[in-house]
């Protein structure tokens, strides 16, 4: 049986080392490049000849745009319009990372915590700096919610501070754990098929068919959750309550 963890192994394609730091171009970087290329080419084709009655590609791109625009509008409000490009980019990066990982023999870069943590920390730092730029030290009132009785404040404030600090952790661990667990499960069930042979091995195979459909759903949902949480965090920084 093939090692189910082998699919997560990072292999350097072009080894580069600068000043003792490994900066190799790996299979992970390659699939990130592919994601960038796919999104740029797709969007260019979709918006090349905009028609009043859109063709399929244009309708798909517009649907995606409206999905994220609606998300930003619902969660941040009209003030969030200037952050739409950021949310859209985050959504596309995560979605393509998850979806390209569903192709056999590909590499899922979102199944590595280094990648998801990098994304989540970037969002976290951006939101925190934005909050301080917009509100100054008044930003700390985020940790002391209005309408809490005095007696509860020593308990509520540490809870709020901790919930704020763990945001990048939850954001990244959720995405990485879901993607890794899903791909691991697929591989393990595929391994069962190989072990059980032609007759009985069909059972895990059919199970795998259902699992792949489920994985596609999870791939979309995780991108959705990642984007919507970025929206919610941004909202906190933009308008304090």
């Amino acid at each position: 049986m093939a090692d189910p963890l082998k699919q997560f192994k990072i292999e350097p394609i072009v080894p580069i080392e600068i000043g003792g730091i490994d900066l190799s171009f790996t299979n992970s970087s390659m699939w990130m490049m592919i994601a960038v290329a796919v999104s740029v080419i797709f969007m260019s084709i979709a918006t090349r000849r905009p028609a009043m009655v859109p063709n399929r590609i244009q309708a798909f791109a517009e649907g995606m745009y409206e999905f994220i625009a609606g998300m930003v509008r619902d969660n941040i409000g009209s003030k969030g319009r200037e952050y739409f490009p950021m949310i859209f980019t985050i959504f596309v990066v995560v979605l393509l990372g998850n979806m390209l990982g569903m192709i056999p023999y590909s590499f899922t870069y979102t199944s590595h915590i280094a990648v998801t943590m990098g994304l989540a920390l970037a969002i976290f730092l951006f939101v925190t700096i934005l909050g301080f730029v917009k509100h100054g030290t008044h930003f700390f009132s985020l940790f002391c919610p209005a309408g809490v009785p005095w007696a509860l404040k020593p308990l509520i404030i540490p809870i709020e501070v901790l919930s704020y600090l763990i945001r990048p952790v939850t954001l990244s661990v959720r995405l990485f754990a879901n993607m890794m667990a899903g791909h691991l499960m697929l591989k393990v069930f595929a391994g069962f098929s190989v072990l059980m042979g032609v007759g009985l091995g069909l059972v895990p195979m059919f199970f795998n068919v259902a699992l792949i459909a489920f994985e596609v759903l999870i791939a979309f949902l995780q991108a959705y959750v990642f984007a919507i949480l970025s929206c919610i965090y941004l909202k906190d920084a933009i308008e304090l309550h």
Partner: protein
Amino acid sequence: MTEKDPRLEKIKADLEAKKKVEAKTESIHSKKFEGTESMSTGLRAGAELITSILAGGLIGYLLDQWLSTTPLFLIAMLVLGVITGFVNVWRTTQNIGYQVGYKDLKDKTDNNTIKKDG
């Protein structure tokens, strides 16, 4: 005001009909995303609970290492992490999302439905 303009009446009736159709499409639209919404909420809740506890423990452990007060901060932060995890899960189920603070909740449910036992 008492006499009725037939033109206005017609516009009003048209508007009502249009509103009805709009409400119907709206409900269909929202139903389509209902499953996605509730599933994403479920996915969020689990991760929130686990990472809160782990992160609390980790912060406590690091503080202990730094101040050499083992195991004071580990225990305190672990307890805090557990409380935070449960509060955040509770917050998700109250449908107020992940916003820090309770003012929105108070505004939304201005009568007795609010429970402030967090």
